[in-house]
């Protein structure tokens, strides 16, 4: 079967410094895939390259079989990728609700609406008219996730989803993931907590210094395999 999203030999640079050295990656519809790796391994860069925030070579990224490498972020997003960026990055002069509405700016049809996001994160309903910067770190993370969902993407890319969230919220978010994929969304999570990553995902990629050092079904990888892949020992 044709994969939904794939990369082949994906390289990425910051100025003259190379951050990714040929990543091969496939994603099938309806999967949850985790990407793990040490600090600075290139996980965020990988997600940025998928969404066009970092320039990718033309043929290196395919979505629905179509080449999307090197397109502008706006073009890529309109085709159905959405990113929950590292560090939340909400629109600071917009209210919570307006932030969520911005997520729908690409006007893709689908099941996610304001109402459903508020159901997922009831804490936001009370604060819907508040300016985004006045929210606590965790509340902001919820808005960032909700905003990405509002675009009804086919593929949801989450960078450090649980960063700064209280355990109760992490639990809720990860409990929500299967519901999200059940409706046909495909999810890639970048996660530092290996146990969580193994638990929530079906397959797993481990990056090390810009290269894939390990890949496989999450449940079958051993601790040793993973820690070797992490540090290259």
């Amino acid at each position: 079967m044709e994969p939904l999203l794939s990369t082949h030999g994906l390289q990425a640079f910051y100025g003259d410094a190379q951050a990714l050295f040929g990543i091969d990656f496939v994603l099938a519809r309806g999967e949850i895939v985790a990407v793990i790796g040490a600090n600075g391994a290139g996980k965020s860069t990988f997600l940025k390259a998928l969404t066009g925030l970092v320039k990718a070579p033309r043929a290196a990224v395919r979505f629905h079989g179509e080449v999307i490498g090197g397109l502008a972020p706006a073009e890529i997003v309109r085709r159905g990728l959405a990113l929950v960026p590292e560090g939340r990055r909400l629109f600071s002069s917009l209210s919570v609700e307006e932030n969520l509405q911005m997520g729908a700016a690409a006007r893709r049809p689908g099941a996610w609406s304001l109402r459903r996001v508020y159901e997922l994160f009831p804490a936001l309903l009370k604060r819907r008219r508040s300016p985004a910067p006045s929210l606590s770190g965790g509340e902001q993370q919820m808005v960032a996730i909700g905003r990405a969902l509002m675009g009804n993407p086919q593929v949801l890319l989450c960078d450090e989803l649980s960063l700064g969230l209280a355990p109760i919220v992490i639990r809720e978010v990860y409990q929500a993931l299967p519901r999200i994929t059940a409706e046909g969304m495909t999810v890639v999570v970048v996660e530092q907590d290996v146990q969580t990553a193994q638990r929530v995902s079906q397959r797993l990629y481990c990056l090390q210094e810009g290269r894939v050092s390990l890949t496989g079904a999450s449940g079958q990888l051993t601790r040793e395999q993973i820690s070797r892949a992490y540090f290259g020992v």
Partner: protein
Amino acid sequence: MLDLLAQAVLLGGLYTLFALGQSLMFGVMRLTNTAHGDFIVLAAFAAVAGLMVVGSSGLALAAVALLLLPLAFGFGWALQRYVLNGTLGRDPLPSLVVTFGLAVVIQNLLLELFSADPRSIETGGFATRSLALGADLRVGALPLLVLLLAVAATAALQWLFSSTALGRSFRAVSDDREIAELMGLHADRVYALATGIAFVLVALAGVLQAMRTTVSPSDGPLLLLFAFEAVIIGGMGSFWGTLAGGMLLGLAQQVGFRLDPGWGIWFGHLVFLAVLVLRPQGLWPKTRG
């Protein structure tokens, strides 16, 4: 007293019209456009030049003004797309320098093309017509028109900014351009659109300014300061605030003028600084949608 208030409101209307375009660009792009006044003058000269070509009559004036507005939109759009977009960012300096440069270019280009002679638009007596509202109170028809246009433009912009998806995009792009692109917006186009709209207002202000007084190539900076004061008094991102800021500035200057003509503008500046000291964020910062 009544006369003072009436004149203050009329003057305030003029300042509002000067300021609205600036308010939009400042609000959306955080762009400190120091060439704003010069663009107003440029638009005025464009109208003057247009009338030189087609000859002057009421009909010609209307035609030229109507033609100028879309032209200004296109000009603003292109200017943003190809020049100003390169200067945006957290640091206010690049935009400051580029617009300073543009101001110098415009002033000297106009000087070269039109010489330093003051120009104006013939209104066929409309500029001198007035309505008598009581024994001692007469208000000019043209200032009244300016005021009405200013209020209408304020209302339209405020609606656009806070109640439409376009307005939301404006603000989103101004907050975080990269992430706005992740939402599927083309930031460059959004900016260009905003500047285009701002330039329609600039053109309007320019034509009306040339109708009510003369314009000459070096008039820009003074207009700029008044516009900025109105914007900042009102608070960034709020157009009703800009209107109120324009009114307050008009009132302050009028009061100052009547105390002593030499201190009128000075008094306006002082009120401006006082507002800043008391409320650095302006009187009506950022209304929410």
